[in-house]
């Protein structure tokens, strides 16, 4: 059961939520809320932005300054909010479709600018809300309603994408490690710069049932069996890593942050 402090961050009057019983999104929301509580963030100074899809509904359930935007575009809105009021804590919760398909351009440029926003990517490898169509993170060979003969296009590695585009904190974990998710999110929020925390989650309703992971617990077990910590993976050969997902912190660096740069530009211009 969530603690009272966490509950105070929820708009419980809008429950029951729309997520399917056993959905991983609730675990991620709980990790996020614990991180916000631990960091002593104020609800009226915290912004949660989201795009479209199951993940996006999280913004509605959190009692903060919340903005549920258009598909893939949430980082554009979040960027406007953050630049207008840099003192606000801005979190962007998105799905794999938001992040790596329709919003891919916004994602790489938010990384490039290194604007102080924490992006939490709930990667369930599928478009769940629309009924289970393949996404850019659907693994090759997986079944989806739009890949009835198995996906043939290679999937995106969101963390590598974020690292390549210049994010200052990049980490991955899964819903099988909620405590680790909380820690990574906390570090992301504290990092002065653009942070990406990819949390592997599942949609047993639309992905799992077509890919031998029918129940929520099948998926948790899948993550437990197939994720490898970065520290361990370093010593493993390529062969042993086939089919495994590396989790851990990939980037943690301090580089100039966009709004700080802009504020110093203002100072320079105004003399």
């Amino acid at each position, binding site marked *: 059961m969530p603690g009272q402090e966490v509950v105070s961050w929820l708009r419980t009057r*809008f429950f029951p939520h729309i997520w399917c019983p056993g959905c991983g999104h609730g675990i991620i929301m709980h990790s996020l809320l614990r991180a916000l509580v631990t960091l002593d963030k104020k*609800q*009226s*100074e915290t*912004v949660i*932005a989201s795009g479209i899809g199951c993940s996006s509904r999280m*913004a*509605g359930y959190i*009692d*903060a*300054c*919340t*903005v*549920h*935007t*258009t598909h893939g*575009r*949430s*980082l*554009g*809105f*979040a*960027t*406007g*909010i*953050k*630049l*207008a*009021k840099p*003192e*606000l804590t801005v979190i962007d919760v998105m799905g794999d479709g938001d992040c790596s398909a329709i919003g891919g*351009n*916004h994602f*790489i*440029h938010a990384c490039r600018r290194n604007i102080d926003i924490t992006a939490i990517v709930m990667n369930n490898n599928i478009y769940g809300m629309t009924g289970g169509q393949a996404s850019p993170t659907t693994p090759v060979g997986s079944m989806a309603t739009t890949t009835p003969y198995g996906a043939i296009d290679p999937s995106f590695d969101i963390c590598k994408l974020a690292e390549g585009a210049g994010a200052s904190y990049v980490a991955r974990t899964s819903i099988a490690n909620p405590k680790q998710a909380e820690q990574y999110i906390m570090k992301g929020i504290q990092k002065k710069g653009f942070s990406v925390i990819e949390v592997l989650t599942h949609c047993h309703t639309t992905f799992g049932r077509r890919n031998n992971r029918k129940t929520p617990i099948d998926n948790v077990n899948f993550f437990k069996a197939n994720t490898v910590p970065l520290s361990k993976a370093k010593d493993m050969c390529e062969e042993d890593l086939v089919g495994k997902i590396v989790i851990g912190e990939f980037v943690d660096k301090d580089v100039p942050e966009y709004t700080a740069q*802009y504020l110093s*530009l*203002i100072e320079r*211009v*105004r003399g």
Partner: protein
Amino acid sequence: MPEVAFWQGNEAIAYGALAAGCRFFGGYPITPSSEIAEIMAEELPKVNGRFIQMEDEIAGMAAVIGASIAGLKSLTATSGPGFSLKQENLGLAYMAEIPVVLVDVMRGGPSTGLPTKIAQQDVMQARWGTHGDHGTICYSPASVQECYDITVKAFNAAERYRQPVLILSDEVLGHMREKVVMKKLDPTQLVNRKRPNVVPEKFIPYLADPKDDLPCMASFGDGYRWHVTGLTHNDWGFPTNNPEEIEKKMKRLMRKIDRFRDDIVEYETAFTDDAEILVLAYGSVARSSLSAVNEARSRGIKAGFFRPVTLWPFPDKEVEKLARKIKTIIVPELNCGQMVLEVERAVHGRSKVVAQSLVDGELFKPDQIFKVIEEVA
């Protein structure tokens, strides 16, 4: 800022925005609107404002909506394909009732069309470009002075009616230089969105005052927590599937503009008292048209001139009234006939309506319009 300047229309829009209190610009370079972004990039830091060049037109629109939610008066400017790209998030601003100003410096289309040439092909897109019903406020300046003045008005309207306001300029106006006199604006001439006057716990973000159908708007970071969504929502800002709540929201979105229609609508007329022929034109074309009407008058033809300053809402009542005593209305447009449809709707067949189309990338010469006046006289 000088009191008198010799500016291009795009410059006048940028300085008008600053005078109106605009403190945020988000956008993407596109001809022929880029000067607006360039000036904002230079000027905004000087007034502690914010400029950001986004990765595309879509993100430019998103950023200005975000900045407005955080309390800054915000502007974006674009043209042609960029206006198309902005339609998705423009719709969110209508639905979530976020004040922003969008300038479209019209060029020829469809598609990439004529990036450096004038056209007026976005008139219907301005009204109906984003999906779904909504009221539209769209201004059409016809001089560089008016580019300045209208931009102030556009910000005021956006703040007052809590929705996006469009300015349809055009390539000729954007790049034409004219004298501009900057009237001193005192704070009472600038409108700011209605702020909530209740404590945060009592704030119902979309509860409108029945007197004006307009809800108060809090800014993120001002102590109020609320939910912004593009989904159809109830007074609390939360998604709803309740037919009553859906209808209430949709009807109010339309009504908040309809009921203030007479306050919003603006137009200009010349020689209409005894006119038998009326030339109805907007934007740069209005300049050629007024020249043609003057020429006609000098030759004894009873021609008049009507210029909608607001394209949306269209001054239909005013046009209808004139149509009762006018034989023929000529509508010269740099498109294949868009605003003429609205004129036909307004006049109910009371006068003959003649469309005059020009789509060769050039502006009408007064002679071309005068010839049509002569033909119908």
